[in-house]
């Protein structure tokens, strides 16, 4: 039975934002594959296909009631975890990391999909256990286990960026539903105490790796050099940018992963301050809209789900852009909509679909 209110409540602005940001991504990627000798032209057409596939997924994600995801949350979770285990067994990858599962002519990166699974399963758990005084330590054991399993599996691949994302998303959701004050203090104090203890037990090379991670300047031939090149690319865009297809840093292939993690440098070099700020504002609007969906939903699962999705988009934007501007350690986190990669694009499209879903069904809560 079709309800007219579904159409009345449909959030066209969320859909438009997805389309616009996706378009930004295609334009930047086009520049990156045209000018840069390193990235084959094929990648652009592949991404074009992924863009439309993503839109289909977006539509599917809002067609049926999001409560279905509440009901099937554990199944989705188990499915995604088995995909992660599959990666460790049959996975394919490059540079020593196994991240992909091959299905015939395309391959997927299950660690991207796991982010959605974690958001859904946590929303499902918290919507049943959250209360006004906050969650106690005992109530946090289950969420902890739900997070630690995908976390360990993803670290094993290894894909540190996605693993950190999972922790940040889950952490944001947990803090949002509130932790009971005393439990919160315990967590903080034990965290502060354990850091030096863990440090003490680390081996010399592990310490060196962490220090380099925190301070790229310690690795002037690797990460440190990439960050310098990225900063030069961004800064050389100045106010108006060098113009479409005119970026030189990109063209010379000095940026590592210029079409995935470092795509923002390409954009900032060619479109300058104006382009960068416009894109940042679009992301900001998207995030505020996501929080607004949570605000207007009058039912805990939908609220917490929307918060989780918005947290994911926020952290990826903040960490990715912060990283290429030298504000943050370099971890492999993609920029939603913009970075090359099918799994990443489809994941964020599904997320937008879910937001639209929660938004258009807000009247259904009794």
């Amino acid at each position: 039975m079709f309800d007219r209110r579904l159409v009345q409540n449909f959030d066209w602005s969320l859909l438009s934002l997805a389309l616009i940001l996706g378009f930004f991504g295609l334009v930047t990627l086009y520049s990156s594959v045209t000018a840069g000798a390193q990235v084959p032209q094929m990648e652009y057409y592949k991404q074009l296909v992924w863009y439309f596939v993503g839109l289909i997924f977006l539509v599917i994600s809002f067609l049926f009631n999001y409560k279905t995801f509440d009901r099937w949350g554990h199944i989705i979770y188990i499915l995604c975890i088995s995909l992660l285990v599959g990666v460790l067994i049959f996975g394919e990858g490059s540079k020593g990391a196994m991240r992909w599962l091959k299905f015939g002519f395309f391959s997927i990166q299950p660690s991207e999909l796991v982010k959605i699974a974690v958001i859904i399963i946590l929303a499902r758990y918290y919507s049943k256990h959250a209360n006004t005084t906050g969650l106690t330590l005992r109530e946090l054991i289950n969420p902890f286990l739900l997070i630690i399993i995908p976390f360990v599996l993803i670290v094993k691949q290894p894909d540190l960026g996605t693993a950190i994302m999972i922790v940040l998303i889950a952490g944001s959701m947990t803090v949002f539903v509130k932790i009971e004050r005393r439990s919160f203090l315990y967590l903080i104090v034990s965290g502060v105490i354990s850091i030096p203890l863990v440090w003490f037990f680390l081996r010399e090379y592990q310490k060196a790796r962490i220090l380099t991670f925190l301070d790229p300047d310690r690795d002037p031939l690797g990460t440190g050099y990439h960050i310098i090149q990225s900063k030069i690319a961004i800064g050389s865009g100045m106010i108006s940018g060098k113009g479409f297809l005119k970026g030189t840093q990109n063209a010379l292939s000095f940026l590592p992963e210029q079409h995935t993690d470092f795509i923002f440098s390409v954009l900032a070099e060619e479109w300058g301050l104006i382009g960068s700020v416009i894109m940042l504002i679009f992301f900001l609007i998207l995030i505020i809209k996501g929080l607004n969906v949570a605000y207007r939903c009058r039912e805990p699962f939908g609220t917490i789900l929307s918060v989780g999705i918005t947290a994911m988009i926020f952290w990826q934007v903040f960490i990715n852009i912060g990283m290429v501007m030298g504000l943050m350690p370099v971890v492999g986190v993609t920029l939603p909509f913009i970075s090359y990669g099918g799994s990443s694009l489809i994941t964020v499209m599904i997320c937008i679909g879910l937001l639209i879903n929660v938004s258009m069904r807000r009247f259904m809560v009794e």
Partner: protein
Amino acid sequence: MHSCYWPSPEEEYKRETLSKYLHSTDSDWYKRRLTGVVFLVLTAFLVLIARVFYLQVIEGNELRRLSENNCIRLQNIDPSRGLIFDRNGKLLVDNRPSFDLNIILKDAKPVEHTIETLSQYIDVPATELMSKISRNKGISSYTPILLKQDIGRDALAAIEVHKYNLPGIVVSVKPRRHYIYKQSAAHLIGYLGEISSDELKSGKYSAYRAGDYIGKFGVEKTYEGLLRGKRGGRQVEVNATGRVVRVLKTVESFPGHNVYLSIDYLLQKKAEELLEGLAGAIIAMEPATGQILAMASSPAFDQNAFVDGMSHEQWDSLVSNPFRPMENKAVNAEYPPASVYKIVTAIACLEEGIIDANTSFYCPGHYKCGNRVFRCWEKRGHNKVNVVKALAESCDVFFYQVGQKLGVDRLAWYARACGLGSATGIDLDHEAKGLIPTAAWKRARTGIGWQLGETLSVAIGQGYNLTTPLQMMTLISGIANGGIRYKPLILRKVETAEGEIVNENNSKVTGRLPVSQRTLEIVRKGLWETVNKRKGTAWIAHVDDVDISGKTGTAQLVSRTGSNDNASIDKANKLNHLKPHAWFVAYAPSKEPQIAVVVIVEHGEHGSSAAAPLARELITTYLLKDKKG
């Protein structure tokens, strides 16, 4: 009830659930939290925008300038590879500077003119240089393209003088491997080669890049990790013509460790001289430690040719050479052990109690087994033979008979316990395992049961048996040192470039020969008589100054059994490639041996005439030098 139900009923009672809370319209509990979140998000975006502003507006001009010519570049600092010395500290392998010519296209404007000028100084046609450039199409124009490696000092001087007419031409200095003594210990030391794309993809060489040289053979390969060192690099700022104006950051490279081999260069050289013009191998080892003193394989090859690059013809002639110069015959080649194997047969029958020191057989020059006649190499026969005489005069008939009593499987057990049929574990690649046949092995291999006649062949080291010279070395040095099998060592010690000892290679016992002291003494007496009795097969190796013991072997490549075999051998001897291989294994002095030697000469015909004199020369060189020293 839901499975995730955690709080106890009492707790639950005291609380309002969030759902209830959310449904009460007058509450905006979560709304207040969301307001806080919005505030945090705004702050974060403010930080990002401030940073973009800082980079693009405040630092914009400076960063634009740096981007114009891509001023910040990385330069490699290649580590210098560890040196290789002999046991006495004599330098065998070092590095020399190689001046390589590169062009950076972006700086070399106009490219054609620069190339034409350049070709005058380095004797390479401009078209060839241009083709090298076009082969690198697609790579960034700031990446140096290699034009010519290892230009001579004259060309270097010319280019330095005219460098202002040669924009974009960069000379880089790279250490290049230099094998000081051409062809010496070539198989043991090995050589370097450019890393292949398969090796890069294998994941085992993560710290390596295309164009790097790695050990491909011998010690250079086995000790790659020790010799390699660690790459460093520089972040530099260059000006518009590509010259470095400022070094921003440097990561020092670490030189590789220096490696001291156990070989003695003078003895090695002597062994190589003795093998000159022959195909074969010589190994010398300290029986008491397992340290290899010399390991020569002939013919050898020039290692420098691998590093400096060789033509297709040179390479083809190396691989198609019928004497297989690329093979380390001491370790990688398998030969029938021939009469040297009689040592094993003697040990087995003494240990099994089939005979004792005095048991004698009569040798009429042949032995009839079933309806086949097996001949002794001595047609006239040896008359009455006990085990000592059988070893010394290498009587086949004696060993046919004890072999028949032993059976092939018991004999195989002893052979394996002596270290034959399995790798010795030396630190060199592709060590051959050899072959010790058993009845079960043959059935599995051919589907045919074991024949008694085959046991007789095996007992004198013919038939299916195969051994490497290095396995023979563990056998003979075990006899020499009282029954201990050591892992053959080629590494003596490893030092850092500053001379700090990283590790010293200590002897490693891998097993014991299956012999009692009494058996050992009997066998040693046989080996002593081989050299020191006029009728011994190695009387030729006898010298006055040094007391040598040993055993000869003549590995037939055409079966000696059968009816009209003598004719076929005679025919075979006329064809060089069917002539038997000549073995000699020895140690000296007979009491408290200091050196054990294995010699194999391919198609050398007789162990006594072709191999034993070489061992004698090597032993006297080593022991008499010691006396002088």
